[in-house]
């Protein structure tokens, strides 16, 4: 687990953001995103200030900008959806160059893009600075139901194994001259999925038996519980507190 395996966003480092306990970071992230979503989209300066805050935090993480930028692509499908808004929304229209666009749609598109992008950036900062095993510990610390925590922990643990299996099947297909060009090749690809399911399921059964033989009784043993000092909370909560300050300043200005 951890750095170098490349199966999650995590980017190994020792910045102050990396060192914060994961449950503190996750709480901070949720609070901050809630504030962003609750901000009215007409409060344009607030969004500028949020971006500045997040960029400042991102600078602290020592994660390269290029790696953050590359990962922003997860947002693309919804950027397309947002950009359609000015064309399809209801209400009065305004002239923008050669186009007649709906005013509400323009505001809508701006709001979707601003809030969506801030959400992705904030989540990326969390994902790049938190090790998968700490994410699982954070979920447990934040009292999510045990089965959910355990399923998530198995997910992280076997992600690399199962995607490795998928990769090997791809190599096997490629070395037999297979090329996925059109729908005609779907049968082979779906066969891969079938084989992957059978292998995953059987692995699940083997893992379960191995766990039972080592005394598993419904709870996973964690070697180290997450702990946070008041200082950790203080440092982390600066971000949402600053967010609330910005929101208040813009709303009452």
């Amino acid at each position, binding site marked *: 687990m951890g750095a170098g395996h490349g199966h999650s966003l995590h980017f190994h480092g020792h910045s102050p953001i990396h060192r914060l306990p994961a449950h503190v970071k996750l709480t901070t992230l949720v609070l901050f995103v809630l504030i962003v979503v609750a901000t009215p989209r007409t409060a344009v300066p607030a969004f500028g200030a949020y971006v500045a805050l997040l960029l400042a935090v991102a600078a602290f993480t020592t994660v390269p900008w290029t790696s953050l930028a590359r990962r922003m692509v997860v947002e693309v499908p919804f950027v397309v959806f947002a950009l359609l808004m000015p064309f399809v929304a209801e209400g009065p229209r305004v002239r923008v160059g050669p186009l007649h666009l709906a005013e509400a749609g323009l505001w809508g598109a701006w709001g979707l893009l601003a809030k*969506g992008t801030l959400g992705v950036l904030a989540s990326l900062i969390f994902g790049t600075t938190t090790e998968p095993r700490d994410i699982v510990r954070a979920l447990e610390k934040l009292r999510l139901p045990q089965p959910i925590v355990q399923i998530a922990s*198995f997910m992280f643990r076997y992600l690399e194994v199962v995607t490795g299996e998928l990769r090997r099947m791809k190599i096997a297909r490629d070395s037999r001259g297979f090329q996925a060009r059109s729908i005609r090749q779907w049968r082979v690809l779906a066969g891969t999925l079938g084989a992957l399911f*059978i292998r995953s*399921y059987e692995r699940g059964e083997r893992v379960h038996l191995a766990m039972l033989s080592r005394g598993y009784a419904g709870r996973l043993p964690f070697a180290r519980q997450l702990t946070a000092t008041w200082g950790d909370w203080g440092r982390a909560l600066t971000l949402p507190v600053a967010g609330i300050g910005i929101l208040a300043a813009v709303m009452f200005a």
Partner: protein
Amino acid sequence: MHVPDGFLTAQTSLATAAVAAVGVGIALRGARRELDDRTAPLAGLVAVFVFAAQMLNFPVGAGTSGHLLGGALAAVLVGPFTATLCISVVLLVQAIAFADGGLTALGTNVTLMALVGVWVGYGMFRVARAVLPKRTASVPIAAAFGAALSVPAAAATFALLFAAGGAVPIATGKLLTAMVGWHVLIGLGEAAITFLAVGAIVATRPDLVYGAQDLRPDHADLEIRDGVVV
């Protein structure tokens, strides 16, 4: 199809989060019945399978490709409760570790894909199984039927949510037609992949397919017979 932050108003997001929490709560109880104490490792590996399956690209033509959503497939393979749980955890992990899908929209995404996607898919699968002859060959056809309907159902739910509590005023009818129209096509792709994948699994390990449990021969279990005493 992961809804990001800010697409729906805060109230709508809270409402879908409540729906998702209740749904996942029920799934937690139900999954225990489907998988007994093997829940954690098996559901975990099935969750990884769904996650990995979404990484496999299916060429559509003209250089584009699509991937499986997997709600109906998971429901047919491991049962609807376990599938709900697996897809919810996949969405949770995608949101917090891969920044895919907004954290405040997690409730919405779980409602759309883990509740509507899985249960419409499974419900329609059951309906098709009841109509089709009781044979192994019917299982992939029924699964494809479920998959074909589950995708537009999730899209229609999103359109209705967006109409009720979206961040932009759009004519509900227009959005609904566009979303459902487009997702009927995606649903056909989903149906084809689900049909082929379930077909491949039923052909080799029908015992692993939850939706084909009733087709198992009665004498499948090993039995101890009295030895012939000479």
